[in-house]
């Protein structure tokens, strides 16, 4: 093996290691039975998982995350899908191009800046310390992902299918229902998954907008790391990582079966 191939191999492996190892290294720590997060692991137990799912502070935060996550997913998916439908032309007017840029801006603006503004404004309208406020805040940063995903799929739909439906007597709304949306479903689903993941992961905005009763899992993890680190963090990280891998695998498989059907 010549020098180039060897160095490619070494560098590539080292970087892969750098990228993946931290995620893998943390997994076994979820099963430690000590209060400390060190290697070598003295003994194994599932006590931290129990703590995660039974301690009231963690339980509440999990429930909150689920409530807020579902609310965000619903709101973001609906708004994002309808918005993407308006942007699907290949040649967009200046107005619509500007609108598209605005739709994607929440991904770019630093969360702290948005958080400050939201806290100020939400306070004025009584939205702080409410589930609705947190859901709205999460939706703002989740909706760009929905738009991107749905738009990508929409632009891949053959317009002639919609023309065919119209020629066969389907009114525009019927075309949407019978042809466009079913074919756009993979994009809508992956957008919804992204929205849920974004909400689950959201810490900064939650810091500013949520009250103690809307503490999400991510918010709770943040405080725990900061204040009194406990292996429950590792257990939560384990759940996150395994969940992510599962969802990625499921999405991949379902995309392949959906593509095979179509």
């Amino acid at each position, binding site marked *: 093996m010549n020098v180039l191939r060897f160095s490619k191999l070494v560098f590539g492996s080292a970087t892969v290691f750098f990228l993946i190892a931290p995620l893998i290294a943390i997994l076994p720590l979820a099963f430690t039975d000590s209060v400390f997060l060190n290697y070598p692991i003295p003994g194994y137990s599932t006590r931290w998982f129990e703590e995660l799912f039974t301690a009231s502070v963690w339980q509440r935060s999990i429930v909150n995350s689920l409530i807020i996550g579902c609310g965000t997913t619903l709101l973001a998916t609906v708004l994002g899908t309808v918005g993407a439908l308006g942007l699907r032309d290949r040649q967009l007017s200046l107005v619509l191009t500007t609108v598209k840029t605005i739709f994607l801006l929440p991904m770019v603006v630093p969360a702290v800046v948005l958080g400050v503004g939201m806290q100020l404004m939400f306070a004025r309208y009584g939205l702080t310390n409410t589930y609705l406020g947190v859901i709205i805040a999460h939706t703002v940063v989740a909706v760009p992902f929905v738009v991107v995903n749905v738009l990508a799929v929409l632009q891949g739909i053959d317009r*002639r299918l919609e023309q065919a439906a119209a020629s*066969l007597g389907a009114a525009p709304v019927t075309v949407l229902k*019978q042809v466009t949306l079913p074919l756009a479903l993979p994009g809508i689903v992956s957008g919804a998954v992204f929205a849920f993941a974004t909400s689950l992961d959201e810490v900064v905005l939650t810091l500013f907008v949520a009250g103690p009763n809307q503490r999400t899992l991510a918010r709770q993890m943040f405080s725990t790391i900061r204040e009194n680190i406990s292996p429950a963090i590792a257990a939560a990280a384990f759940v996150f990582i395994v969940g992510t891998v599962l969802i990625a695998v499921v999405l991949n498989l379902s995309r392949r079966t959906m593509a095979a*059907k179509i």
Partner: protein
Amino acid sequence: MSNPFIRLEEVSKSFGLLTVVEGLNLEIGKGEFISLLGPSGSGKTTILMMLAGFEHPTSGAIWAGGKRIDSLPPHRRNMGVVFQNYALFPHMTVSENVAFPLKMRGLPRAEVTERVGRALDMVQLGSLAERRPSQLSGGQQQRVALARALIFEPEVVLMDEPLGALDKQLREQMQLDIRDLHRRIELTIVFVTHDQSEALTMSDRIAIFNRGKIEQIGKPSEIYDHPSTQFVAEFIGETNLIHGSVQSIEGGTARVQLPGGQEVFVETTTNLCPNGSVCLSIRPERIKVGRREVASNKITAAISDVVYHGDHLRLVARSDGQALVIKTDRSQPTLSIGEEVQLSFLPSDCWVVRP
């Protein structure tokens, strides 16, 4: 045409600065099979799209069945459309695809099932009713598309190069099937194609398009035997174009001198001016080759190439700098390259074409 079924009146279509169709006037009779033939970019698909309602004319009007339809949305035009790539709904089964137009019209489910069954049987796809389009072959998808476009009994069917993706044998079979269908049902068919032999075999009339305008419209035989322009002559079938100057005109026959001095007689109804230059079109199969003359027009030429085509021979002969292609059957005695021969043809075999 008295009482045309479809009429396009001064229809133009531009996309931005690009004019695709210009000042088009076209009348189509009820039950007629008309082909819109032309190279890609000539505007024929755009015209079909305007008939279907997917594009709107920049100016002009479209009439169908006595009513003006250019502002009618596509889902109310009641025309069957067969698309180039079939446009079958991938997320529905074959029977759901075919049932779609009936569902849109609100027919009761029992009737829908019955009619779908009949339609699929008619195209011999009854056994594939529950399959998805992706599981069918190209030919099968084509038939489903056809069944879907006909099941709601439209009066007009628009076809946009529907046979383009099929292999030769299947294509020829489908051409016969569609022609047969047209004879059985009184259906007005507007058929877009770039394949001239397809247009010749299937149509009652052909409209030849070039850059957004109709160059010639007429029966297939008219277009083939009497092309009006150079473009039409070259687009339909093969032809030889020779240039010459008019020496004299007597009755319906003109005497044309070719560069190099040889003269031929042409039957023509066009107004030709003496000493004006003309372009003549002669079909390769009309030229007889021999060592002696056999008809009243003869050109001396030298064979420059002989190509074997299985059921016929193709000869290339040169005369005074012009090359002529001749199609002849194999009963011809073998000719060698460089041999001098007489090419003969009747005055009615050549035709004056506009540039």
